């Protein structure tokens, strides 16, 4: 078991390293930090621009392999280079990682649990009203892009606030700046800011997982081992939970893994629209700023997320499916 996981880890690590290198070369070739200086008025002398770019390791006159080598040297010491503004990428990244992970973890765990629950219920009560209702709702949510969901949520929060005449739900930023008061007060403020962004992620996740879980559960419902379990005296509910759900959860592990990596892009919309300063927002802004080092740092972050999710799914597979003993 440990050896199996270790081998997977090694494989994933090689893939992440390659993905990051590829990301670096692509970003280095397509983004032009020089443009940030060339448009200035009064114009800067070329030598000054070169000196600036050299300092940031962003000079496109240096071969990209050489730039990559210098960047890699820094990374081994935990230094991810500098932003175009000259700040440390590492410092900024550690702060933003926290913001993104809070949003992603809460959203994906809640969404996963709700989705699995809804999917199981839909399968058990197939072709009843509740099944049709959840199916229609999940199709509607899946057809709506995250950014539209986010904007609509914002709109409804505004209407709700106007209707009640109180600031019930907040939709900008992570907390109210300069807020004073007791711990409880600050906590409530955080929660009020958290609800809508989390909801925008949870809705999509729950809809996605409920579809797959419903299918997986339906496959299991007609199986012989469930009938056997019931014939041996288990009540239907017990048999469903003990044997059915466990089997139906196995394929979900893979979906959960692949999805966690994709989540970051979904979070980019949420962060951008609700004004959370996380990794997704940073990435979008950095592409327009020609900020090569930041772009690569976020690519690395996304790849590592996929890696962790992949390992977790391998682990979940091993725990759920007794046949996996490698």
């Amino acid at each position, binding site marked *: 078991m440990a050896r199996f996981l270790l081998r997977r880890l090694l494989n994933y690590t090689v893939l992440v390293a*390659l*993905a990051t290198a*590829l990301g670096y070369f692509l970003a280095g070739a397509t983004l032009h930090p020089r443009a940030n200086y060339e448009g200035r008025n009064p114009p800067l002398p070329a030598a000054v621009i070169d000196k600036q770019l050299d300092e940031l390791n962003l000079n496109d006159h240096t071969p990209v392999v050489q730039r990559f080598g210098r960047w890699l040297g820094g990374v081994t010491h935990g230094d991810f280079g500098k932003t175009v503004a000259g700040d440390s990428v590492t410092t900024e990244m550690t702060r933003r990682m926290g913001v993104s992970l809070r949003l992603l973890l809460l959203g994906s765990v809640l969404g996963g649990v709700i989705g699995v629950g809804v999917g199981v219920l839909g399968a058990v009560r197939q072709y009843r009203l509740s099944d049709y209702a959840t199916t229609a709702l999940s*199709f509607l949510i899946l057809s709506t*892009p995250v*950014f539209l969901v986010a*904007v609509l949520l914002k709109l409804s929060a505004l209407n709700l606030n106007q209707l009640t005449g109180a600031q019930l739900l907040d939709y900008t930023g992570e907390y109210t700046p300069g807020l004073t008061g007791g711990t409880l007060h600050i906590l409530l403020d955080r929660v009020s800011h958290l609800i809508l962004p989390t909801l925008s992620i949870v809705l999509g996740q729950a809809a996605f997982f409920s579809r797959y879980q419903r299918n997986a559960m339906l496959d299991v419902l007609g199986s012989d081992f469930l009938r056997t379990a019931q014939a041996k005296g288990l009540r239907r509910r017990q048999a469903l939970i003990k044997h059915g759900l466990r089997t139906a959860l196995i394929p979900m592990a893979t979906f959960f893994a692949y999805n966690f*990596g994709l989540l970051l892009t979904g979070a980019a919309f949420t962060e951008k629209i609700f004004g959370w300063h996380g990794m997704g927002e940073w*990435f979008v802004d950095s*592409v327009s700023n020609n900020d090569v080092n930041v772009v690569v740092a976020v690519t690395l972050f996304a790849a590592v997320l996929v890696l962790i999710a992949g390992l977790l799914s391998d682990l979940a597979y091993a725990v759920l499916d007794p046949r996996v003993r490698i």
Partner: protein
Amino acid sequence: MIDIEEAAAVDSAEGAGIGRGRLVLRRFLRRRLAVGGLVVLVLLFALAFLGPYISRWDYRSHDFDAFLQPPSWSHWFGTSQIGEDVYAQTLRGLQKSLIIGLLTALFSTGIAAVVGACAGYFGGWADRVLMWFVDLLLVLPGFLIIAILSPTFRGRTWLLFVLLLAGFSWMITARVVRGLSLSLREREFVQAARFMGVPPAVIIARHLLPNMSSLLIIDATINVGGAILAETGLSYFGFGVQPPDVSLGTLIADGTHSALTFPWLFLFAGGLLILTVLAVSVVGDGLRDAFDPNAAAPRGQA
């Protein structure tokens, strides 16, 4: 072409003598929701490509007498900040999104079919190299990579964008196709063809791919919706379709800045987008049920 699997499917259908295609068609037509989705899709296409002809306005023209007007008789969907007709722009966006969705799905499923079938059929080194490449692409965040590459296709044809979208959305299907090819490879009709000296490319094209046509068709349908969503998402951030051209994504992005005060700027584009993707996924779902030989028939019939 009738292969063993298709023949078996026909046999198992109780009405002997009907071809597989007609069987699938009959089962599809029985799904009212899916048929409704197909009708909606046809109407959307008609609206996107014929709709512009019944309006006085072009998506590039400006009406300098009407800035930010709500929907009215002269401007059915209202006008934008600079006097563009939102109806004309929305239909233009719908055209782009539909075409991009269709083309991307076609390319993406095509790549998945070829790569998956080759990996499964040839096995050994070819399989290992191709699957390793699939793993690498899965780890690479496609959305981020397309965004990084967006400066290079600024000012170029949007077909490049389609190719990029397709290039990052075929991997999971390729894995499934590989699995199917592995088992098909051992079947008698493939073995027979191989011993008769039929070249591998012909075997893949004539025997392997037709036998997974149901999977490929369903995958392509699902990819249409996925591609439309991916395109709108990238365009929302300015990484996709570039101005002066518009897509539903760029329209929604422009509209959301003033969503609270001038909702017509994005509500029509948003509504049409949801309707399109919804129709596509309903059709896909209907196809999946129609193709699935094990599916429980809704009213006790095949």
